[in-house]
């Protein structure tokens, strides 16, 4: 089973992100379970959503306490929430930021063989460029496909097309595709 925890702020589409990821996995014939955290969902408040992906039926209903990957939609949460809680050594982290790992002071989390596989992606900028709004979900899911290989970009694209009306969908597809390419290129050049 592969478990993902998505962190963001109310209004950024955290729940939709988990939902689209689960649809993408379903389209690959896998079992997937997406659900929101059971916290107060107010605009701007820290919120979480979860997604589990497996080849067999998923029965467990607890929150994702030991994620294989984290998607962080808002880097300002780093100061507010214990985002890395339960993340094992070599766990994936995809962080929406234009800053580098060192600029955010996360160097100690990313270096050495035992550390997290930490990746930065300017997802909000990609969203503004392609969608015209600061909705980083699609780009982050494209990036997620690139860094983890758990899901194919084509499945993310298909899930986006299922979720949104065609005009908005195509803009999000463009954001996801560019994010996938960016993250793939960064992966080639990094030692992560």
């Amino acid at each position: 089973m592969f478990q993902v925890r998505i962190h963001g702020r109310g209004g950024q589409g955290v729940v939709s992100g988990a939902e689209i990821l689960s649809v993408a996995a379903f389209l690959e014939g896998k079992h997937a379970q997406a659900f929101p955290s059971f916290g107060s969902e107010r605009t701007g408040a820290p919120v979480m959503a979860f997604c589990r992906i497996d080849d067999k039926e998923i029965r467990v209903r607890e929150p994702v306490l030991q994620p294989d990957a984290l998607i962080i939609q808002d880097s300002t949460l780093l100061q507010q929430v214990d985002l890395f809680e339960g993340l094992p050594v070599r766990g994936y982290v995809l962080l929406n930021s234009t800053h580098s790992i060192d600029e955010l002071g996360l160097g100690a989390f990313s270096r050495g063989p035992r550390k997290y596989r930490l990746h930065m992606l300017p997802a909000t900028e990609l969203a503004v460029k392609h969608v015209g709004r600061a909705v980083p979900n699609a780009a982050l899911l494209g990036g997620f496909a690139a860094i983890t290989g758990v899901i194919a970009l084509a499945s993310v694209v298909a899930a986006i097309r299922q979720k949104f009306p065609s005009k908005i969908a195509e803009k999000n597809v463009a954001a996801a595709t560019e994010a996938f390419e960016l993250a793939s290129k960064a992966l080639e050049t990094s030692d992560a």
Partner: protein
Amino acid sequence: MLKQTEGSHAVAEAVALCRPQVICAYPITPQTHIVEGLGEMVKAGELADCEFINVESEFAAMSVAIGSSAAGVRTYTATSSQGLLFMAEAVYNAAGLGLPIVMTIGNRAIGAPINIWNDHSDSMSMRDAGWIQLFAETNQEALDLHIQAFRLAEELSCPVMVCMDGFILTHAYERVDIPTQEQVDAFLPRYQPRQLLDPADPVSFGALVGPEAFTEVRYLQHHKQLRAIGLIPQLAAAFSKQFGRNSGGLLRTYRTEDAETIVVALGSVNGTVQDVVDEMRERGVRIGSVSICSFRPFPLAALRAALEHAKRVVVLEKCLAVGLGGIVSDGVRKSLSGIALKGYTVIAGLGGRAITRASLTRLFEDAGRDELEQVTFLDLNADVVSFELERESKTRRTGPTAEAILRHIGTVAASIG
């Protein structure tokens, strides 16, 4: 057709396939997405011959449901928590009149303190209202139970609640198999009311019944539920034949053969319990579980057969009978009358507290050593409780408890579990 969708949406599709003619509801979290989905289908004309009636309260929702069901049409509504309490008087009336209304409960805690998250306090509060209560373990089962519920309700002329865990199921996206209209039509015949308000053949409903006949009317209500004990497994078997999967029934056992410890629970937590059972079985622990689907009628004989060879039973309950302990436990004990077997009540998941594999594993290990209290509160934070009791012992004017505890524990946004 296989589909990855939200639990609420899956239920809305299932209800639509049952061709209800009146849907009346008032929104309340976490049930809202179900009736929103149905409202959209009615508006889009996808649900033919169905009227969606907006009402001003839950009391009105059930009152309208009583009216339309009495007028002879298939009627559906849904609610949660305080909404169910607000319609309570009409809930009893629907059952007393024998009207086959189907209602979804998106299970949620009851205030105060106000809490929108899941536990079973709401439907448990109406357990003796005369409705049949079925609890769904997964979204597939929630979907399937609605199709069975209409047939059950109409065969018996008795209302049915389908209970599904709020958020945990209602808001979860997972794979469901949505049947075709032809399949559902073949399983669920046209509604033929036993009683209806018909100007061509007038009758009156709701007579005043004195001591001379009240007991008999009540007894027949009980008798109806005893018939349901036989009918529920029959319908589950017929459903399985028609749809090719198992859903519903009185209860389901999981690895109970040769089990020394058996866990009994209702609803979605059974999935987590089964995972823990598997992990413990791998370590050689003889443990199994029972998922009760039909809470009303309560399956005394089936439960006795499932439990009688065990050494101990752990009843995991998402509702607290304040001043007593567990509600499900009472029924479990009754089913075991005359059998010497250790029984433990565990109150868990109140107000949406996560029930984790780690906590359940510790709990079941303690149970295996018979080191549990009669009533245990899973993951109770004893420090918080002691702090508050200490504070309250020091001064008379302590102020409200809930607010004091929130101040003490500080921000919760920073924690994951």
